[in-house]
């Protein structure tokens, strides 16, 4: 499901942006160059970014301005990246973060 707002009464039509390809949990995804990683995921209605350490509960977008860390994911092998204030780049490899993002048995 696409959650992008293409037409808007006040903001008008969405400007055409350059697209880049990223990988999210192994699957390819097209994103708008420079948009926050979190927005690219939300556009596909993906709202879970990470699972907590102890109770393994799902977390996602909460503040949207880099203050709360609920949106942290593993980006190019680096854990704890706040996806709401990190822009997408061509070829970025993004993974859901489990706990603190280390020793989760994945290949990063």
């Amino acid at each position, binding site marked *: 499901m696409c959650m992008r707002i293409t037409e808007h009464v006040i*903001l008008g039509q969405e400007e055409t942006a350059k697209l880049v390809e990223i990988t999210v949990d192994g699957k390819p995804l097209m994103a708008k160059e420079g948009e926050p990683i979190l927005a690219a995921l939300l556009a596909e209605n993906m709202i879970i970014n990470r699972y907590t350490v102890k109770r393994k509960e799902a977390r996602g977008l909460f503040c949207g301005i880099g203050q709360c860390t609920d949106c942290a994911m593993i980006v190019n092998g680096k854990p704890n990246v706040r996806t709401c204030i990190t822009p997408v780049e061509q070829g970025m490899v993004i993974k859901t973060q489990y706990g603190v993002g280390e020793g989760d048995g994945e290949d990063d």
Partner: protein
Amino acid sequence: MISKEIVIAGAGPAGLAAAIEAAKAGAKEVLVVDLNLKPGGQLFKQIHKFFGSSAHRSGTRGIDIGNQLLTEAKEYGVEIWVNSAAVGLFHDRIISIEKGLDSGEKELVNIQAQKIILATGASENVVRFKGWTLPGIMGAGAAQTMINVNRVKPGNKVVMLGSGNVGLIVSYQLMQAGCDVVALIEAAPKIGGYGVHAAKIRRAGVPIYTSHTIIEAKGTERVSEVVIAELDRSWNPIPGTEKVLEADVVTLAAGLKPISDLVRLHDLKCVYNAAFGGWVPKHDRNMESTQPGIYVVGDTTGVEEANTALEEGRLAGVAAAERLGYLTQTDASALKDDIWERLDGLRMGPFGEKRMVAKNQILAAFPECAK
């Protein structure tokens, strides 16, 4: 370590206005840092026409004010670093900036500044109920950033908690973005924000439940149902009044509180003020804090509005430029008097009066000896 004349933390209306005013007066090395991807603070999510007195650009949209500030900042040679968080504040006005993205290399830059201006704004209050950590539950400001800045919907069916101006405006904007606002929930018996905003919501057919609150959010890995209940006069849920609403987003609009991390880090003296959202730094009429050479402006000094933030920023910009020798005392006084007149004008009327009283309390709490 590098050095700058003025370093400003936060590129919202307060920080940008301070930078512009100081640079206009002649200050040369003016740097503004902001942790976000773009400067402008809250302004770029505000696509509605502003409320406020006509002398203060009411009727202008936040995004337009933001663009104008950025143009002016550029014109006067203000330097802006984005993706740069102020993380430390030390004696003799040394400020530490963490520069760079989470995903890349970060660099810690220590700057010796002659003047420092803190303009870090406010953060949203949280409301806790069973299930409040489920994905899909977020600050109203977070939802607003997604729809108006990034142009993506956070979900399709939204329950809004809180009927202050933020709750009302964001509800309307969610509808403009194509979301279905299922209900607006308010714990108080009356709507908190302006009648004009509430009327828009009502006309659109959104049910407003006053004297109600959210008891629980249900769902596996994402909110799918919201249980609300009516509150009695002592704000306790009345058994048997529960209703279940279907929703995939809950937005919390329960007010804002000043961000005071840096303020506390450097022991700027604070005072509690409920009308301003919590602990706020004491300051004088130049917006200078209890630490000489460190100024505080905008929502950081008490949650108000964009126009007051702008004017407070201007005050600090003028005051700092004066201290640095770029303005004579006479010229600076004239400028400051004008700004205070405008600020007083903004703090009038039924909504402004409370803020006028609060600001006067803070000014009165400033210790004379520190001047």
